[in-house]
């Protein structure tokens, strides 16, 4: 052992280990920022992309109703006045961007390391693999927040938004609860990407399905009964209904307690399920020796 220096790493449920993992998460986030900012034009395009994808929903909605307010939507939602379609779509699509965070940002964090040729090096470090995924989650959430800010500023300047300012704080609380469940979902996707390698089809498929099952641009009432039931499994449905009830003027008040409980249950379920699947897949691919395979 001469010439080697023993390095002791904090392990288990200790404060030192928690600090080390938090630093790994932060460093992982900083690393992705550095890579991303090395390509400023690409970064700019990615920041503007959600706005570009939102515009067709808005313009299409405005053409359909021939103005800003929809009486049919009022009937479906039970609001006091006809619903402002711009505010309705904006609040929905804003959340949809964070689903992309979970699926693409977190889900492909490990796969991306494989493309860069750094996956094996990361695997032999004494850090938890989940820290890498959570680092990506932190980065993606920050990145998406920039995109949402751009979306908000442009839509506010061009179309105007009728948002209830007092409702921002409770809406943010609901949003945070939704994000925890989405992080669990993202961990699950990253496990799938590790296992399936070319998991983009699964990711894109899940994103498309979530887009249909979430009340982004329409209330769940227009979905068939089975789809409505299925949407309850994902946090976006409950979160959007809760957030809109705080953010939109005249939106019927919802059972806030029920929404919070629903989201808390989904948080626990998705986080536990995601971590469980991640560890199972992680162990399986290491035993098979297929970690480095494409």
């Amino acid at each position, binding site marked *: 052992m001469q010439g080697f220096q023993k390095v002791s790493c904090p392990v288990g449920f200790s404060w030192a280990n928690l600090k080390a993992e938090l630093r790994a998460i932060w460093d992982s986030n900083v690393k992705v920022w550095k890579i991303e900012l090395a390509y400023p034009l690409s970064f700019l395009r990615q920041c503007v992309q959600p706005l570009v994808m939102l515009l*067709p929903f808005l313009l*299409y909605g*405005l*053409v359909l109703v021939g103005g800003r307010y929809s009486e049919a939507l009022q009937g479906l939602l039970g609001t006091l006045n006809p619903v402002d379609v711009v505010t309705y779509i904006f609040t929905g699509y804003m959340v949809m961007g964070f689903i992309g965070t979970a699926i693409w940002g977190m889900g492909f964090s490990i796969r991306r390391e494989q493309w860069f040729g750094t996956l094996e090096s990361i695997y032999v470090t004494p850090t938890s693999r989940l820290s890498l995924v959570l680092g990506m989650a932190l980065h993606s959430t920050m990145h998406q927040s920039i995109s949402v800010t751009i979306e908000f500023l442009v839509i506010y300047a061009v179309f105007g938004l009728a948002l209830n300012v007092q409702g921002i704080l409770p809406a943010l609380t609901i949003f945070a609860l939704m994000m925890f469940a989405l992080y669990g979902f993202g961990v699950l996707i990253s496990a799938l990407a590790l296992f399936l390698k070319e998991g983009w089809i699964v990711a*894109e498929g899940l994103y*498309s*399905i979530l887009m249909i099952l979430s009340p982004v*641009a*329409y209330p769940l009432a227009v979905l068939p009964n089975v789809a409505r039931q299925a949407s309850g499994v994902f946090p976006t449905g409950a979160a959007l209904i809760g957030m809109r009830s705080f953010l939109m003027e005249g939106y019927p008040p919802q059972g806030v307690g029920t929404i919070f409980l629903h989201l808390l249950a989904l948080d626990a379920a998705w986080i536990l399920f995601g971590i469980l699947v991640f560890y199972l897949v992680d162990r399986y691919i290491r035993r098979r020796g297929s970690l480095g395979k494409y």
Partner: protein
Amino acid sequence: MNWNLSQNLTSNSYIMWSELVKNMKFLMAYPAVFVFWTIFPIFWFIPFILQGQAFVGGLQSPEFAKLAGTPNFVPFVILGGILNSYVLTSLYGVGESIRREAYRGTLDYLLSSPCNKAFILIGKALSESISSTMYAITQLVVCILFFGIEITLGVIMPILLIIILLILGLYGIALMLAAISLRYKQAHDLAHTLENIFYVFSPVRYPVQSLPSWAQMVSTILPLTYALIAVRSLMLLKYNITAVYYEILVLFIIDVVAIFLGFYLFNWMEERTKKSGTISHY
């Protein structure tokens, strides 16, 4: 001289055929990719159908008819989605094909082969056209069965002509993209930007008239705009082909310009890249 010409034609046809077969083999090796491109474009326009239903309380909108000419927004959106999938496959299929060859490590061999590289790209474009049309036909069949889209036999040939003209224009643009990726490597962001321009400025989800006038100007240089107007006029508004002569003529002009520019740019970039010795750079 005649013998040389015929030999050239035969060898170039063989290059195109080989490229087509190679790409088809790739496609068949990944059946999940095939299923994805057949099914998921339908999932992308379903939210728009549900949104329409929620916003107007039915499947027809008189306000929509004022701009689109038809109150039926469902077939409007479906046709937009299907034709837009040609944009996606041309930009990512042909436009990024050169980049993919670089990833596979085969670009150097392709560019050093003693043939006109344009025919390799034509082969790639042909295979993309075939696969895109297979996806589009499957999507259309699904939409006829589940969304009540109607198509009469009489409009099939004019629609095929319009789609061929659309494909030619798109592949001209994709050639330019391939040329840029040859020289500047990371053309992925450019492909995304072009996709966004097509998506927002063409009447994929809404009529062009709903856009501000400066945006309508942008839409006039996009081949998808004319293809969508022509196909919808024939299929939804039941117009005669004589009513869409203008759109067909403009599509033809765009095709000629785009293909000429595409080939010119590609040959120029190929020369420059070879001279700079950066073919195998990433």
